[in-house]
């Protein structure tokens, strides 16, 4: 069963960073404040000052956010036309993106605002080209301060929102990875076949049934906590593999032979929990189970220079069989191991899969982990 398919998709909608109403709200508050300050300084009518303040403020806002919405809309359409996903990164976001827009706003906002204000109040303002006039200086000074303050606040809000969205996304990806790990380890076919064997054993050999139940307990407990613990000693890793293989040995009978070799001096080295489990499962599922006579699994740990070398080898069908196998979960196990190696060790660990180059045949999977 392709269990991955049933998981929710990791696609998260692009964070809605450019929310026009935020800028609009802030601009309105700023406009009222400027109108109040101007009324105090100039002792004119508050109503008229409010109208002009809003006209200029909203013109600046319209230039900034209008341009942003228009540019991002065009970018999205272009992406869609090229067959890409439209939800790429937005343009003109943050300080650097918004500064050119702020300059445009300072250039076009005040004259536009004055024109609108004149139209609304029926008054006639001094032309902004008369730089000597006090009203021009005040208008320009407040427009520049207002625009810069507005750009600063909006870009800060956007940065915070983007950081929150990316933290949420990271958390979701981590939770999904954990769920996938759990699903792959609690494979229903394995679980129900084990229970079926246990059911038979209870009737014929109660002592062996108890031993099998102990192995199953240890295996389940390790599986459920593996997604939490970061590292455990190599000896524990081998003990959990031994539990799993003991379960499989009851099921497969003489078709499965196992050799575990862990040198005493390596027993305490830390490794990510159940890292080898998918490799051992692959050996059973794609290597030994398809063989009528079964075969043997060897699991070994060695120290080579500054590296810990872990190997899982089977005498089964060989790596070609797994690659062409109709069941895709084998490939999924390897992907999962590689992902975990990359997360824990960066580029310093590797996994190779090859034909075991001797007379017994089968597959050899080798892990190289850094010792430091």
């Amino acid at each position, binding site marked *: 069963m392709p269990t991955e398919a049933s998981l929710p998709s990791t696609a998260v909608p692009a964070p809605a960073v450019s929310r026009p109403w935020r800028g609009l709200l802030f601009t309105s508050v700023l406009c009222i404040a400027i109108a109040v300050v101007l009324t105090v300084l100039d002792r004119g009518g508050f109503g008229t000052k409010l109208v002009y303040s809003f006209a200029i403020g909203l013109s600046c806002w319209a230039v900034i956010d209008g341009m942003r919405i228009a540019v991002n809309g065009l970018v999205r359409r272009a992406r869609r036309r090229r067959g890409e996903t439209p939800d790429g990164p937005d343009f003109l976001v943050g300080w650097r993106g918004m500064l050119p827009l702020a300059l445009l706003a300072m250039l076009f906002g005040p004259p536009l605002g004055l024109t609108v204000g004149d139209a609304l109040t029926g008054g006639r303002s001094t032309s902004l080209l008369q730089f000597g006039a006090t009203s021009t200086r005040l208008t320009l000074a407040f427009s520049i301060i207002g625009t810069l303050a507005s750009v600063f606040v909006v870009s800060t809000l956007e940065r915070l929102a983007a950081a929150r969205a990316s933290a949420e996304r990271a958390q979701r990806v981590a939770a999904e990875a954990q769920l996938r790990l759990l699903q792959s380890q609690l494979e229903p076919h394995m679980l129900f076949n084990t229970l079926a064997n246990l*059911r038979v054993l209870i009737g014929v050999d109660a002592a062996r049934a108890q031993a099998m139940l102990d192995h199953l307990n240890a295996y389940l407990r390790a599986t459920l906590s593996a997604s939490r613990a970061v590292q455990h000693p190599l000896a524990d890793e081998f003990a959990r593999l031994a539990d799993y293989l003991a379960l499989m040995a009851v099921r497969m009978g003489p078709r499965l032979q196992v050799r575990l070799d862990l040198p005493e001096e390596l027993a305490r080295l830390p490794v990510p929990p159940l890292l080898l489990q998918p490799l051992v499962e692959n050996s059973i599922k794609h290597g030994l189970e*398809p063989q009528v006579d079964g075969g043997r699994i060897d699991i070994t740990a060695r120290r080579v220079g500054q590296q810990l070398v872990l190997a899982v080898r089977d005498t089964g069908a060989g790596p070609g069989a797994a690659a062409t196998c*109709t069941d895709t979960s084998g490939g999924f196990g390897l992907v999962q191991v590689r992902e975990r190696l990359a997360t824990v060790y960066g580029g310093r660990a590797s996994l190779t899969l090859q034909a075991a180059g001797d007379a017994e045949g089968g597959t050899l999977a080798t892990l190289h982990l850094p010792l430091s």
Partner: protein
Amino acid sequence: MTTLPAPRCLIAEDEPLLAAGLRADLAALWPALVVAAEVGDGASAVAQALAWRPEVCFLDIRMPALSGLEAAQALAEDWPEGVPFPLLVFVTAYDQYALQAFDAQAVDYLVKPLDRQRLAACVARLQARLADRAPAAEALQQTVAQLRTLLGAAPPQAGATRLTVIQAQTGNLVRMVPVDEVIYFEAADKYVRVVTAEREHLIRLSLRELLPQLDPAVFWQVHRGTVVQARCIASARRDDSGKAFLSLHGRPETLVASRLYAHRFKGL
């Protein structure tokens, strides 16, 4: 009415304890039933069933060599004329697609771990079917129809791309064989024979792996081991056993379409 001889069964299960468990449960629920053969893989299941001709076969779905479904297919194709076809019971731990298909079918299935009551119901059903046994040919027809549905219910291979050229290697030479020149493919152990009008090649691939890469409208499966390009079939002659014999354009030999696939050759 004469007393029937004791019914016999075959158990195909690759896990020894489970086979022993099923045998013990059957002994308790159906003492008259004789276990004629117990095998651990699909190929032996086919061979032993053909040799012993039991009345009932318990087939595990996941087995080495041949799956339970593939074994059933082989039995339906090779079962001798006039002998009652065995009642098939599939056993599975967790194979959703198979279960969904069985639900609509009269063949029984069991889910592991086997539950005593469920097994008892299965035994009762088998006993009723054996007592009221339909004529052999009719039973086989029924099973063939069921298997057709089951095989059709297997999940389609995702992401398979269609082959256009087959690369057949002999020594250091790789021959490029356009797929539309292939008259038929025939399974030969772990290989597939690729037959064109002029020559034949062996490729190291099983028919199971090759099938999803062929266009099913162009290449017809006519037997578990044979896939023919439809336009190369000159004529089909059906016989009483339900098989059909196909003569070809460009090849002198005759191919056999098995009971499972011969229904494709009907006059319009």
